C-alpha cells in the first residue's frame, strides 16, 4: 500500500511539474508577443512590420514545437510512468489480493482444523460412549442370558432328580429285601447310638 501511494504521489507531482512547465512556457510566449520599446514600434510603424510578423510566427512555431516536444516527452514519460504504475498497481493488487486471500484462507484453514479437531474429539467421545454402552449392554444381556440358562438348566436337573428318584423309589418299593438291609440298619443304628441311648435311657 505504501509503494502504491508513493507512486501515485510521484505521478501527481510529475503532472504538476508538467503543468507548471507548460505555464512558464506560455508566459515566455506572451512576453515575446508584447512590444517592449518605442523603438520597435517605430520600426513597426516605419516599415519593419513584415520582419516583426515573421518573428512572431517563427517564435510561435518554435514555441509550439517546443511545447509539442515537451508535451510529447511528458506524455511519453507519463505513458511510461502510467504503464509502470499500472503494472505495479496490478502487481501490488495481485500481491495484496494473494496475501489477503492467503491470510483469509489460513484463517479458514485454522478454523476448519480447529473444527475438525473438535469434531474428531467429539466423535471419539461419542464413539467411546457408544462402545462403553455397547459393552455394558452386551455384558448385561450376557449375564441375564447366563443366569436364565443356568436357572433353566437347574430346573431341568431338578426335574431329572425328581423323575429319577421317583423312578428309583417306585422301582425299589415293590422289591424290598430286608435280609440284605439288616446290616445296613444295624450300621445306621450304631452310627446314631449315642443319640438313641440318650433318648431311651
Amino acid at each position, binding site marked *: 500500500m505504501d509503494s502504491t501511494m508513493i507512486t501515485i504521489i510521484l505521478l501527481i507531482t510529475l503532472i504538476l511539474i508538467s503543468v507548471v512547465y507548460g505555464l512558464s512556457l506560455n508566459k515566455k510566449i506572451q512576453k515575446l508577443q508584447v512590444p517592449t520599446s518605442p523603438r520597435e514600434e517605430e520600426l513597426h510603424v516605419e516599415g519593419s512590420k513584415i520582419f516583426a510578423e515573421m518573428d512572431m510566427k517563427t517564435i510561435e512555431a518554435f514555441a509550439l514545437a517546443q511545447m509539442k516536444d515537451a508535451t510529447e516527452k511528458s506524455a511519453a514519460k507519463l505513458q511510461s510512468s502510467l504503464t509502470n504504475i499500472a503494472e505495479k498497481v496490478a502487481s501490488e493488487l495481485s500481491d495484496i489480493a494473494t496475501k489477503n486471500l492467503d491470510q483469509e484462507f489460513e484463517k479458514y484453514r485454522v478454523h476448519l482444523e480447529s473444527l475438525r479437531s473438535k469434531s474428531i474429539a467429539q466423535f471419539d467421545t461419542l464413539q467411546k460412549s457408544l462402545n462403553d454402552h455397547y459393552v455394558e449392554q452386551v455384558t448385561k444381556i450376557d449375564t441375564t442370558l447366563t443366569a436364565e440358562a443356568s436357572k433353566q438348566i437347574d430346573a431341568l436337573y431338578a426335574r431329572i*432328580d425328581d423323575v429319577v*428318584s421317583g423312578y428309583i*423309589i417306585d422301582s425299589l418299593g415293590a422289591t424290598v429285601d*430286608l*435280609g440284605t438291609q439288616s446290616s*445296613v*440298619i444295624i450300621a445306621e443304628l450304631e452310627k*446314631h447310638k449315642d443319640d438313641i441311648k440318650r*433318648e431311651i*435311657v
Partner: protein
Amino acid sequence: MAIRLPDSIYSQNQVGVALAELHTYAGHLRDSLARAKIGSQPIDIALSPFLDALFTATNSDKKVLSGVETLITELEDLRRTAPTVHITLAAFPDESMKMTITKWFRQIHPEVFVAFGTRSDIVGGMILRTSSTIHDFSYRTQLLSHRNRISEILRSAK
C-alpha cells in the same frame, strides 16, 4: 432288680400275652397245690415255648407259685415302666431280624420294648421313633435329600 426279657419277647403286646398265659398258669399251679393237699392228682399243664423261654431267660422256677407270681408282678411293672421304641421298616421283618434289632437295643437299655411297623413307600432302611425324637433312616428320605447328587453326577459326566 428288674427281670431281663429274652430277645424273642420284644413288644408290650407279647408281654401282655405272656402275662395272660402266666395268670392262667398260676391258677393251674394253685389248683394243683390245692389238689395235692387233698391227695388228688394234679393236672399236668403244658407251657407254651414262648412262656418256657421266658422262665428260662428269667431264671424263674416254673413249679413254684410264689416265683410265678413274682414274675407276673415284675412283668406288669416292666410293661408299665419300660420304654418303647417304634421301628418302621419297608416290609414286615421276620423273627430273626426282629430279635437282631431287639438285641441291639437291649445293649443300650435291657428292658426296652421294640414295636415294629411297616411302610412300603420308604423303600428301605427304617424310621426310628423314640419318646421324643424321630430318626428317619429310610432310603426314600436319603434318596430325596440327596437327589441333587443325580444331577451332580450327570453334570460331572458331561
